């Protein structure tokens, strides 16, 4: 074997040199590659995140389907918005806060003009990043802490605090026939879904002549029995048991209450709109949930409104298992509202300004799209949507429903929830 000269490349030298060259190419070449990549044109990008896996999957998947089907309807039958197709950037957050923050950053990087989120807890996780960057978002379900003080997150529907206020109003006017003040006990999901309703109760109960009994009871999303807490509630003998939760834990509470003989009597059970869906009736059983009241901010499936035909058509075609679930309608409406805002923005400032998907585009979308919404009827599927300065809830109307014969039927017309300036209350969100 010949003697190796100092000029010969050794194996290690070769590997070192290759590694160094690769690193330099990577650092220098990646920006070039990224800038060279073309992007799809002629679309408006909208970001959407749903908890399609994890603790809230039973709601998240239905919400995902409603969103996607509505976008499909807009693209296929209406040709998109202003002649431009809607490109949906959908990401599952898995009901995980860290994933939600990543998702919001992904939406911003993907040049979405706005984003939507179904879950109040997940919107709470992602709203800080969105607010810091001026990136507007639309929450299907929200708690007061998401909208107060008003920044860049908007509520498609009234928040959980509004649910309580509207039900309390309905109860006093139509169901209460006693003397003095009706008493209410709250059973809350241990997150902003539950405590958002508590905020509304604390803010308005006394003013409405309702006595809020303490303590409030809370449960987790994975609870399997609330018999202990319900026994305590039974000893308090309230007029109203208000459950602010998602369908699965709500159904557990209602079933346990039924087992303890607390249903069908003087005490009324009411659910906030996070729980008042077909899934609740399916999980609890039609007999057990008979007579349960609830709030919901959209129409139900039997309402004869202009948009219902398409909702039914697409649901039965693509997701028949979701038929009858009002979450599907809620997320369908969310897509319609975001598209309407995009339409208004395109009419006002043109496609080019929005397509950049940068901070300027986000501001334009918010100023000329969301804030331009004025009495948009959402094809009759929910209360009218309007932006009011100082109030980021785009719709303030709710209806009271009741489970009757296994169906969720409305018992009132639209009731408007008042604005509550929570940030002026010394106990709200302060430490």
């Amino acid at each position: 074997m010949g003697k190796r000269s100092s000029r010969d490349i050794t194996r290690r030298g070769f590997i070192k040199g290759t590694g160094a060259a690769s690193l330099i190419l990577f650092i220098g070449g990646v920006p070039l590659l990224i800038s060279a990549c073309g992007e799809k044109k002629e679309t408006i990008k909208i970001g959407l995140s749903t908890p399609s896996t994890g603790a809230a999957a039973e709601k998240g998947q239905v919400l995902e389907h409603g969103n996607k089907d509505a976008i499909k309807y807009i693209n296929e039958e209406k040709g998109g918005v202003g002649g431009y197709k809607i490109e949906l950037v959908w990401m599952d957050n898995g009901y995980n806060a860290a994933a939600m923050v990543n998702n919001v950053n992904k939406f911003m990087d993907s040049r979405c003009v706005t984003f939507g989120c179904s879950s109040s807890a997940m919107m709470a996780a992602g709203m800080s990043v969105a607010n810091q960057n001026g990136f507007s978002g639309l929450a299907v379900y929200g708690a007061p802490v998401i909208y107060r003080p008003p920044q860049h997150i908007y509520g498609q529907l009234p928040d959980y605090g509004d649910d309580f206020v509207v039900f309390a109003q309905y109860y006093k006017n139509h169901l209460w026939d006693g003397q003095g003040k009706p008493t209410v006990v709250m059973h809350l999901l241990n997150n902003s879904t539950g405590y958002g309703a508590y905020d509304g109760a604390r803010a308005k109960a006394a003013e409405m002549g309702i006595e809020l009994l303490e303590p409030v009871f809370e449960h987790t999303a994975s609870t399997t029995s609330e018999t202990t807490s319900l026994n305590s509630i039974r000893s308090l003998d309230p007029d109203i048991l208000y459950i602010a939760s998602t369908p699965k834990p709500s159904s557990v509470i209602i079933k346990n209450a039924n087992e303890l003989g607390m249903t069908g009597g003087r005490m009324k059970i009411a659910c906030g709109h996070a729980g008042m869906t077909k899934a609740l009736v399916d999980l609890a059983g039609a007999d057990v949930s008979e007579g349960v009241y609830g709030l919901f901010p959209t129409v139900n499936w039997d309402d004869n409104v202009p948009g219902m035909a398409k909702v039914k058509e697409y649901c039965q075609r693509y997701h028949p298992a979701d038929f009858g679930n009002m979450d599907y309608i809620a997320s369908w409406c969310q897509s319609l509202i975001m598209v309407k805002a995009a339409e208004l923005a395109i009419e006002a400032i043109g496609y080019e300004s929005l397509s950049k998907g940068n901070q300027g585009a986000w501001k334009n979308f918010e100023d000329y799209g969301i804030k331009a919404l004025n009495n948009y009827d959402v094809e009759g599927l929910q209360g009218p949507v309007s932006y009011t300065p100082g109030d980021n809830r785009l719709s303030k109307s709710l209806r009271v429903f009741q489970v009757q014969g296994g169906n969720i039927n409305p018992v009132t017309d639209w009731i408007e929830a008042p604005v509550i300036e929570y940030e002026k209350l010394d106990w709200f969100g302060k430490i």
Partner: protein
Amino acid sequence: MHLPAGIRNFTYAEDMAIFRTRTQWVLLILLFVLLFTIPLFMGNYWLSIIIIIAITIIAALGLNLLTGYCGQLSIGHAGFIAVGAYTSAILTGQYEVPFLLGMLGGGLMAGLTGLLFGLPSLRVKGFYLAITTIAAQFIIMWVISQWGTMTGGFVGLTVPAAEILGFSFTSSTSKYYLVMTICVIAVFVAKNLARTRPGRAFVAIRDNDLAAQVMGINLFRYKLLAFFTGCFFAGIAGSLLAHCYYGFLNPEFFSIKESILYVGMIIIGGLGMTLGPIFGVVFIRLLERLLSLELVPFLESTITVFPSGWASGVTPMLFGLIIVLFLIIEPRGLAHRWNKFKNSYRLWPFSY
């Protein structure tokens, strides 16, 4: 440490050096250059992933000191992270303490909490200590959620952005630099802590606490020191999570699942090595994103015979399967595999 052929140590300083050869120094400098030029070519999304990885590394380093070096199993790490997060948020939000002091305050409070819950380690060990730390997780989160007037309870707590000398860290790039700087410092501290007298005491306690005591190591002092140090790191990570990642705190962000995930990270990465938590965290966080962002949409769009949404359940299933397979194939962790690779590279073509 194995050294390349022809390299010898002639002084104690050379023998103790972490970076001994010119190649190692060059690679280290290149790594720093890469780390600090990343924002030039990565968008908000990847920066946010790297930020959460860096914050998780800080927390995992603390857990590795406690569990990997000292052998005190802790399955309540997310609780200690929460203590640091809320303490820092309250100090900066209500008392207008500067961010750096608030962060240190968060670390100290988490460390003191770790001291408190580390007291049982003097009487119990192994699985019994693990149960104690699980109890710590639940107790801490219960206190946080019930102490609504201070922590905001389940409604949540808005956290001000990190601010140093009037500069507010609100953009992804600025947050990245802040978090990465603290992460590098944390790795440096953890590496050197393991080489000090307390670090050697931790290892002695882990290997045989009775023998360590016989040798004169004060178990009481060093076990509590391990808990304090590990939880201090967790508190620092919590503060960064609050100010530089979420911007809003809710008890749901610090669940028992997170605590178990941290234990999984240090096991997969390699216990008892500073590099272990780094590998473990990067592997787990990237795997999470790969499965949920790439695999699920691919499966949904490719296999349409099943009902829509079927692939969402694949993520947790595959995640668990990969972790189990990994533990079977390489139970000593990624860092051990990396060390084996380096040694074989140095010794090639010889096998030893």
